[in-house]
C-alpha cells in the first residue's frame, strides 16, 4: 500500500530536467563533452536561422558565385581561418554552413529511433504475447546484420540527399531502442501500480504513455546520448561516399572526399573537415562516458 516504494513516476518535468543536468555535469569529461556539443548546437541553430531567413551569417558565402570567390588554395590565415579550396571558397564558411545538416542529423535519427523503439518496445514489454515474440525475433535478425551496410544500400537506392539518407538511417536505427525499451518496460510492468491501473480498466496505450514511458525514458536517454555521436559519424561516412547533399551544398564528409586529391599539396583541406567531424563525435563520446561513470555503469 505504500506507493512510495512502487516507483511512481516522480515529479514534474522540472525536477527531471534538473536531475538530468546534475547527471551530466558531475564528471569532468561530461562537462567538456557538453561544452563541445553546445558549441556545435549553437552554430547549427544560428546557421539554420540564417538559412531560413536567407541571411548570410558566415564570413564568406558557403556557395559563392564565381565572382564572389577568393583566390584558390590559400592556406589557413587570419582572413580565411581554414583556408580556401580549389574553387576559392572559404572553407570555414562551408563547414559552418554544413553544421545544421551534419550535426543535427544525429538528433533527428536518434530522436525518431527513441520514439519508435520506445513505443514498440514499451508496448511489447507491457503486453507481452504475440507482439513481444514478434518484436524479439525481428530485432534478433537486425542484430545479426550489418545494419550500416543495409542503410547504405537503402540510401543508394533511394538516391542521395539528406532526406533520403535520414529515412534510410531511421529505418535501421530503432531496433536497439525497441529492445532496450522492452527490457525496461518489463521491469516496470510488474509493479503494483501498473496492475492497479489495468484492473481499473485503463487501456493499454494509456498505461503506456502515462506510466511506462516516463519511467523508462531515463535509461533510453542515456543510451541515446552516446548514440547521437555514432549517427554523426555514420552520416559523415555516407556523405563521403557521395550520398549526402548534392554539391555544391557543403557536407563535412563530402568535403573530405572532394579535397582528397589535394592531400599532398594542401593537406589542410581534407584534414580540417575530418577534424571537425571527430570533434563533434568526441563531444558525445565524452558526455556519454562521463554520464556512464556518474551512474556507475562501466
Amino acid at each position, binding site marked *: 500500500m505504500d506507493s512510495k516504494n512502487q516507483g511512481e513516476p516522480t515529479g514534474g518535468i522540472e525536477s527531471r530536467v534538473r536531475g538530468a543536468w546534475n547527471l551530466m555535469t558531475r564528471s569532468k569529461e561530461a562537462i567538456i563533452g557538453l561544452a563541445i556539443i553546445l558549441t556545435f548546437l549553437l552554430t547549427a541553430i544560428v546557421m539554420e536561422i540564417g538559412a531560413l531567413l536567407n541571411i548570410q551569417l558566415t564570413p564568406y558565402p558557403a556557395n559563392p558565385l564565381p565572382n564572389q570567390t577568393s583566390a584558390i588554395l590559400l592556406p589557413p590565415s587570419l582572413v580565411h581561418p581554414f583556408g580556401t579550396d580549389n574553387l576559392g571558397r572559404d572553407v570555414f564558411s562551408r563547414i559552418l554552413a554544413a553544421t545544421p545538416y551534419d550535426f543535427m542529423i544525429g538528433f533527428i535519427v536518434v530522436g525518431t529511433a527513441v520514439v519508435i523503439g520506445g513505443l514498440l518496445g514499451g508496448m511489447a514489454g507491457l503486453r507481452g504475447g504475440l507482439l513481444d515474440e514478434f518484436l524479439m525475433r525481428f530485432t*534478433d*535478425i537486425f542484430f*545479426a*546484420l*550489418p545494419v*550500416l*551496410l*543495409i542503410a*547504405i*544500400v*537503402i540510401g*543508394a*537506392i533511394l*538516391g542521395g540527399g539528406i532526406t533520403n539518407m535520414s529515412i534510410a538511417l531511421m529505418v535501421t536505427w530503432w531496433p536497439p531502442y525497441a529492445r532496450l525499451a522492452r527490457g525496461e518496460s518489463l521491469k516496470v510492468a510488474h509493479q503494483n501500480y501498473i496492475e492497479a491501473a489495468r484492473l481499473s480498466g485503463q487501456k493499454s496505450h494509456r498505461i503506456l504513455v502515462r506510466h511506462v514511458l516516463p519511467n523508462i525514458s531515463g535509461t533510453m536517454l542515456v543510451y541515446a546520448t552516446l548514440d547521437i*555521436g555514432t549517427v554523426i*559519424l555514420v552520416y*559523415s*561516412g555516407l556523405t*563521403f*561516399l*557521395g*550520398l549526402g547533399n548534392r554539391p555544391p551544398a557543403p557536407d563535412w*564528409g563530402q568535403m*573530405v*572526399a572532394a579535397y*582528397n586529391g589535394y*592531400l*599532398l599539396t594542401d*593537406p589542410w583541406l*581534407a*584534414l580540417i573537415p*575530418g*577534424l571537425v*567531424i*571527430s570533434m563533434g*563525435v*568526441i563531444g558525445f*563520446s*565524452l558526455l556519454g*562516458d562521463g554520464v556512464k561513470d556518474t551512474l556507475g555503469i*562501466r
Partner: protein
Amino acid sequence: MNLLRFLLRRLAFAVFVLFCVLTLTFVLSHLIPGNVIQAWLGKEAGLYPAVAKLYIAKYHLNDPIYVQYVYYLSGMLQGNLGISPSRGFVPVSSVIAQTLPLTLQIVFLAFVMCVVLGLGLGILAARYHNTWVDTLIRIFYLGGYSSPPYFIGIVILVVSSLYLRILPTGGEYSPLLVSPSPSITGFPIFDALIQGNFSFAENASVHLILPALTLALVTFGVITRVARSSLLDVMQADYIRTARAKGLDEGSVFYRHGLPNAAISLITISSLVMTFLLTGSVFVEYLFSYPGMGHYAFTALQGSDYPAIMATVFVFAAIIITTNLVADVLYAWADPEIRLG
C-alpha cells in the same frame, strides 16, 4: 547433448538470417527507381538491346515477381550474382573472387593489430585505473573510435607520405613486381609464399600495413573499453580473493584467474569488431588505392552498379554472420555452464 542442440539452433538461425538478407536485397533491387533493366545493366542499358534481351531471358525479368524471386534465389545460391556494369559487365562473382581475398588479408592483419593493441591497452588501463595512464589510454581510444575511418586514414597518409616515408601508401604491390600465377589459394601472399616468390610476398605484406593500421586504430577502442571494464569487474570477484588467500603471487592471480575469465566477454564483441573492420575497409581501401572488395563496393556505389552493391553487401553480411556463429561456438566451448548446462 545440449551443446549440439544449441549449436544447431545457432546454425539454423544464421542460415535464416542469410536468407533474410537475400530476400532483402531482392526486394531492394526491385525498389530501384526506374526500369529494372536499367538498374541491373546500368544507365547505358538502352545502348545494348541484345544484351538486355539476353539478360531479361536469363533472369526472367518479365515474369511475375514470385517467379523472379525463385530464380533469383537459386541463382544466388549457385554463385550467380549478376554482372557488373561498373567493371565492363564481367560477372560480379568473378570480381568478388578476385577482390575478397585481398580484403581478407587486410582485415586479418587489422584484426590481429586490434586485438594486440586493444587487449594490451585494456590490461594497462585496468591495472592503473584512475591514474593518468588510464586517462591517457581513454583519450587515445576515444579519439580512435570517434573519428571517421577515412580521417585517420588521411592523417596516416599525410604523415606517411610527407614526413615518415618508410611505408608504401598505396596499391597492393609495387608496379615493378608481378602477381603470382597461377593462383592456388586465391590469396596472393600465400600463393607467393608457396611458390617461393618471397620478394613479392614481402612487398605485398608491407603494403598491407598502413591500411590495416588505419582500420585497427578506428576499431581497437571497442576492445579496450570492454577489456578494461570486464577486467575491473573480474578482479573484484570473490574467487580472486580465494586465489590470493592461497598464497598465489599477483602475477599468477591475474594471468591464471583474472584474465581468462575476463577474456570471455571479449568473444561476444568479436562480431562487432568484424562489422567495424568490414565497413571501414570500404573507406580505407579507397584511400590507399587497395583493390579489395571494399574498394569495389565503393566504386560500385559511385557508379550505381546495383548488382555489385547487393552482392558486396551480401558477402559482408555473410562474413559477419559467420563470425557471429564462430563466436557463439567459441563461447560455448569456453563457458562450462553452456557446454554442460
